[in-house]
């Protein structure tokens, strides 16, 4: 058991998977000798050799395409796309092939691959390095989309993703990479996919979020607690397939829901959650659902990124509106 950052937990899970399963192959740009631009794969090539951990040429479409072919041949490709802004070219292979290989061959060929990508902004990164397009990916049938919010979850979820027989897009919140340490046991234990995690129980209001935004959400809940308001916090964890049950159960209890995400509002994943509530929680809702999201503008360069991303103040404002509703 050791105190690890999220990126170290990712590294540990990769190490464990490479150790346990000879079919696991890790590849991507700069993941080998360099150990990845964020050091997520640090030391892996040195330890497992360059047949298990491979540097690729600079071509994202290729990375996705290779993974599909490798997976069809019984390997477990675990590949890295350096930033979510560079995932777009991979969507073709993800949607047209990875996600549908199993069904279009009626189970003859499967596509157990994991695509790791950093997610989100707030780290003063260059243009295109701060995207959060999870809802686009989560729209694709046949995929899984997972996003951890802590080192322990990162470890367990990544193992689960690697062991899953279907293609998984694994989003790693860049802002959390080195923000916090947590005790992570290298137990080989995976964390269940497809299930939300109630981070904090509460009775007055449900806060739903995922990834790095949970930092602000937790902080907002703290402020609310000082004011005697008890917020329940749900970490979505898996966007696809997604666990509506847990959220519905929470909102049945609290009657109020604020959804927080960094991605642009329109057709963001918050819409799906709000829609689920509109369909299945009408009688329970005591106030309109609130979404606190990035604006429908291009993610700005670093100087304005904090203005773009939901702040604790904006979350609190939405909470206040939801709580004020009688």
């Amino acid at each position, binding site marked *: 058991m050791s105190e690890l950052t999220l990126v170290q937990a990712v590294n540990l899970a990769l190490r464990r998977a490479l150790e346990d399963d000879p079919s696991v*192959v890790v590849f991507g740009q700069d993941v080998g000798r360099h150990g990845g631009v964020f050091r997520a794969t640090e030391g892996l090539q040195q330890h497992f050799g360059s*047949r298990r951990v491979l540097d*690729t*040429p600079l*071509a994202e*479409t*290729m990375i*996705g*395409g*290779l*993974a*599909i*072919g*490798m*997976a*069809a*041949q*019984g*390997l477990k*490709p675990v590949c890295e796309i350096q930033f979510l802004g560079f995932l777009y070219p991979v969507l*073709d*292979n993800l949607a*047209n*092939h990875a996600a549908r*290989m*199993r*069904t*279009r*061959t*009626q*189970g*003859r*060929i*499967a596509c157990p691959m994991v695509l790791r990508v950093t997610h989100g902004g707030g780290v003063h990164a260059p243009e295109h390095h701060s995207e959060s397009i999870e809802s686009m990916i989560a729209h694709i*049938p*046949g995929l*899984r989309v997972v996003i951890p919010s802590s080192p322990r979850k990162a470890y367990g979820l990544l193992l689960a993703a690697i062991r*899953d*027989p*279907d293609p998984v897009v694994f989003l790693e919140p860049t802002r959390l990479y080195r923000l916090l340490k947590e005790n992570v046991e290298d137990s080989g234990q995976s964390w269940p996919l*497809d299930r939300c995690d109630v981070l904090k129980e509460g009775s007055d209001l449900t806060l739903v979020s995922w990834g790095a935004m949970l930092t602000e959400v937790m902080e907002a809940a703290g402020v609310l607690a000082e004011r005697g308001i008890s917020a329940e916090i749900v970490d979505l964890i898996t966007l696809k*397939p*997604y*666990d*509506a*049950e847990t959220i519905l159960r929470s909102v049945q209890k609290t009657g109020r829901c604020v959804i927080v995400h960094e991605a642009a509002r329109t057709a963001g994943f918050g819409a799906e959650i709000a829609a689920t509530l509109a369909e299945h929680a009408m009688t329970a809702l005591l106030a309109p659902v609130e979404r606190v999201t990035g604006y429908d503008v291009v993610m700005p360069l670093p100087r304005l990124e904090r203005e773009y991303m939901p702040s604790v103040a904006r979350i609190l404002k939405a909470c206040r509106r939801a709580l004020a509703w009688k």
Partner: protein
Amino acid sequence: MPASVADSDRIVAQFEVRYRQFLDEEGSPLAPLPDFCRDVDLMLSIYRGMHLARAFDAKCVNLQRTGRLGTFATSLGQEAIAVGVASAMRASDILVPSYREAGAQIWRGCRMEELLLYWGGDERGHAFADPAVTQDFPISITVANHALHAAGVAAAMKLKAEDRAAVCLFGDGATSKGDVYEAINVAGVWQLPLIFMIVNNQWAISTPLERQTAALTLAQKGIAGGLSVLQVDGNDVIAVRDAMMEALDAARRGAGASLIEGVTYRLNDHNTADDSSRYRNLEEVKARWRFCPLRRMRAFLESRAAWSEKRELAMQAEIASLIDSAADRYLATAPPLPDQMFAHTYARLPAGLMAQRVEALGRAHE
């Protein structure tokens, strides 16, 4: 190529593209034939394979015209590439085809009723039952994507140190897509056991080759990735097979990937939804019939006294009956159940999808 080089310049790399052909249009050898040509049974089965491909193709068009098949991409005139390629492969190799290689798929073991089922609009057609092809890739409708899948297949073979190779076919149009180039590049730098066969049939729907690229040959696309490249007469099944054997041998020896351009011609419309008279001169098509690969091979076999009109007729009858019974099996296949949509979306149906499945199945029983 200018003869003189300025003082400031020196030549640092040179490349060439060769063209391979054994038989002329009349089936006469232009060069000493490869050893495998001495195997008469093989020659006959290759000839039969091309005929089977052509007859199956005609059947598909017919079924489509009579409303019993979906849109179908015909391969009329391209049979030598399909059969030349497939006949050079081992069962353990993997075929990663586009949508116009029924001849290769059937040769390798795909059942004709499976292919019909696929083109009939049913995923079960891709659940290839024959063990020889269970690892072969499904038909790729998306142009060019599958080149990278083939590279992934070959990468797996290489990482597992297997004695196998992947073979990927795609068209002249596909060579314009970045996917093909990225596949070529990684095949080169990773020295993959992979053969790309470009089926240059001169047309991509209505776009003729000269509007697709300014490259003198399509084979030279491989130079960009440092591959071994070759152009072959794609209507000369002996040349195709010979080039493939050489390339497969290199792949298995660890000598890396090859790119072969098979020069052929699409004698039919792009597919059954297309009317090529809108954009292509009928005279051009007529002139190309002279290069028909079947005609050429028949002449060759006859010149070796290995064939006769009688055998031809017998073979055609045998093929027709095979195809008819495959078509019967296809037509007799029970329609798909709505559950088929859900069964293989994931290995295990997620909770949220279960509810949707219930809705869908309920609806079906309404």
